[in-house]
């Protein structure tokens, strides 16, 4: 393989890739250096055990950050005891492995503990231009900083622990441009769901997506994290956004961000991280910001996206293998084709996850819920993305708004998003969720998940059915 021509226009992905290639084989397979390796309790025990069995060490423990999140209960008392034996064993295994191998570690007793993809940026571990991996598909989140971030399996976790590299073939470049402005009530979550609805869950397979355009630039860093978080739901290896002044402002002063002269040098480098004029994209999707409505999912794939004003589709609206899948989804979700989405009643509301568990998400939901109550018979749960998000929300009075509305105010973790801890839906229970996957059984066997933004979830909490946030906003005004 020939070396990249530095004069040829390159995409942001090309640049980050080029700066991390350790070795290139004749067939184009590369050894890519990994700047940050995030680790959680579910996908790492077998990897650490593999190291132990082969007598290997963690090559760069100072670049390896471990935090328990998937299994941990979100109720008080978890610091001293976890009821579920298997969960306890897994959390204890991470504790043992983190200490034995000397990696950076935020145990459950640490206020900084939280969902790995919220902790990384919050602590300044995630910085522009880095390669970031984790044994978790939502690692794509970190792409919001203009870093190349993606999920890996446990064998690759072991490979990165041992070598601080990953064996990779380069993906193709895809551009997703969101032009213009978003309309009121439309959020980062609606953008990312709309893109998946447009391209399908395999639309990004084989690509790294660069999100760009005015509507993306206008998003806060937290909004950008929401967009990149779900790149994997569109099948992409990673999603990223070029860093800008907002990115630098977000990073500045974080515990593990550079300081002084190193900061200046870092910013100078970060400013080179953009797609050159004329760089080649293998696929381009353009969506007008004003064409995006508040959306919800109706089925059991994230591509089953519709504007809230739509009706439940008929399986026959689809083609090929999707006809059977759509019918299965309609049956599983207990919906009637042709019914209005706004007539779908909910039993539960979940606000949290690595997609929408940050402070701005809680602020947005709380603004809708202030002075309101959960609809009769609806249960609500707010799970902050980290201990620090939780503290901040308490200081800002958001926690009080949620509890006054009748929500449970929980400790940080992944919680109901994947239901590995006790936070689960009952069979048939229907949930308005700010999380990222509506798969069958995802939030609990037989549970029914509708994905949406925090403000849409808050609206559903008040009315007891899927609701157009714009109607609630009109009432408030």
């Amino acid at each position: 393989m020939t070396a990249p021509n530095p004069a040829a226009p390159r995409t942001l992905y090309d640049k980050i890739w080029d700066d991390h290639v350790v070795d290139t084989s004749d067939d184009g397979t590369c050894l890519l250096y990994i700047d940050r390796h995030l680790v959680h309790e579910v996908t790492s025990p077998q990897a650490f055990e593999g190291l132990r069995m082969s007598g290997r060490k963690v090559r760069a423990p100072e670049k390896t950050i471990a935090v328990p999140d998937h299994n941990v209960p979100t109720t008080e008392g978890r610091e001293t005891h976890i009821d579920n034996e298997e969960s306890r064993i897994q959390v204890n295994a991470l504790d043992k492995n983190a200490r034995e191998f000397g990696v950076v570690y935020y145990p459950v007793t640490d206020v900084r503990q939280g969902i790995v993809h919220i902790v990384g940026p919050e602590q300044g571990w995630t910085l522009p231009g880095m390669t970031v991996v984790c044994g978790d598909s939502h690692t794509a989140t970190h792409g919001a900083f203009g870093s190349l971030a993606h999920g890996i399996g446990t064998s690759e976790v072991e490979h990165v622990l041992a070598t601080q590299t990953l064996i990779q073939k380069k993906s193709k470049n895809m551009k997703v441009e969101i032009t213009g402005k978003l309309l009121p009530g439309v959020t980062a979550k609606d953008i990312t769901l709309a893109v998946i609805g447009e391209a399908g869950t395999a639309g990004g397979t084989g690509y790294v997506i660069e999100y760009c355009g005015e509507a993306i630039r206008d998003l806060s860093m937290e909004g950008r994290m929401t967009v990149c978080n779900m790149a994997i739901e569109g099948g992409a290896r990673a999603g990223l956004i070029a860093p800008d002044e907002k990115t630098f402002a977000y990073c500045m002063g974080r515990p593990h961000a550079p300081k002084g002269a190193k900061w200046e040098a870092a910013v100078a480098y970060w400013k080179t991280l953009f797609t050159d004029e004329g760089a080649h994209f293998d696929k381009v999707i353009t969506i007008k910001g004003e064409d995006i409505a508040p959306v919800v999912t109706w089925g059991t794939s994230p591509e089953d996206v519709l504007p809230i004003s739509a009706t439940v589709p008929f399986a026959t609206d689809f083609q090929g293998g999707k006809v059977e899948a759509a019918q299965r989804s309609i049956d599983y979700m207990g919906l009637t084709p042709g019914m209005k989405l706004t007539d779908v009643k909910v039993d539960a509301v979940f606000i949290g996850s690595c997609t929408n568990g940050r402070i701005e998400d809680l602020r947005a939901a709380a603004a809708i819920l202030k002075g309101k109550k959960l609809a009769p018979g609806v249960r609500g749960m707010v799970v902050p993305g980290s201990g620090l998000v939780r503290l901040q929300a308490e200081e800002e009075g958001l926690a009080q708004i949620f509890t006054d509305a009748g929500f449970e105010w929980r400790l940080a973790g992944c919680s109901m998003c994947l239901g590995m801890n006790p936070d689960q839906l009952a069979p048939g229970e229907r949930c308005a969720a700010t999380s990222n996957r509506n798969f069958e059984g995802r939030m609990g066997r037989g549970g029914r998940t509708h994905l949406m933004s925090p403000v849409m979830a808050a609206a559903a909490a008040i009315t007891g059915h899927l609701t157009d946030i714009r109607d609630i906003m009109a009432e408030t005004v």
Partner: protein
Amino acid sequence: MDKFTTITGIAAPMPLVNIDTDMIIPKQFLKTIKRSGLGVNLFDEMRYTPDGKEIPDFVLNQPAWRESQIIVAGDNFGCGSSREHAPWALLDFGIRSVISTSFADIFYNNCFKNGILPIVLPQEAVDHLMDDARKGANARITVDLENQTVTAADGTAFAFEVDAFKKHCLLNGLDDIGLTMEKVSAIDAFEKQNAAARPWA
């Protein structure tokens, strides 16, 4: 890792599109700290009732497909989470190859680390093999990694693409950490240069 050269076996037809990793191995089975023993829970919620009884309609519960070594699947197989428990469960059940029009990226990579060969073929080829799969033991499928072909029961052979390095590792059952360790001096050199160029990283 087990080597993969050639297999001839029964294929299970699973034409559903977007079979995700939560279907392949639901989260309650991710609490293990081992790699083995997950086969009994493969496709758990499609395969068993909540009280643990087999659902007779599910393909792997039917006598014709209980010994399947191959799955012929609908589009985008393995989408969703990065859990390597999905290929661990497939392997533990006895599945050595999955054939579809497309796979999710992380799942696809994870298969190769565990001696499973995922094969991408065009829709017509998958349809042809799906018909074979529906016939169970009466239409065994042959997968040949060395020659990169899948051969249907009627002798029709379909060529498939596979990355040369992945093929090499799978054919020889190689541990790629060991291979990378041979390049440790290149990693050392990169780290040294990187510490100078990007000292914050």
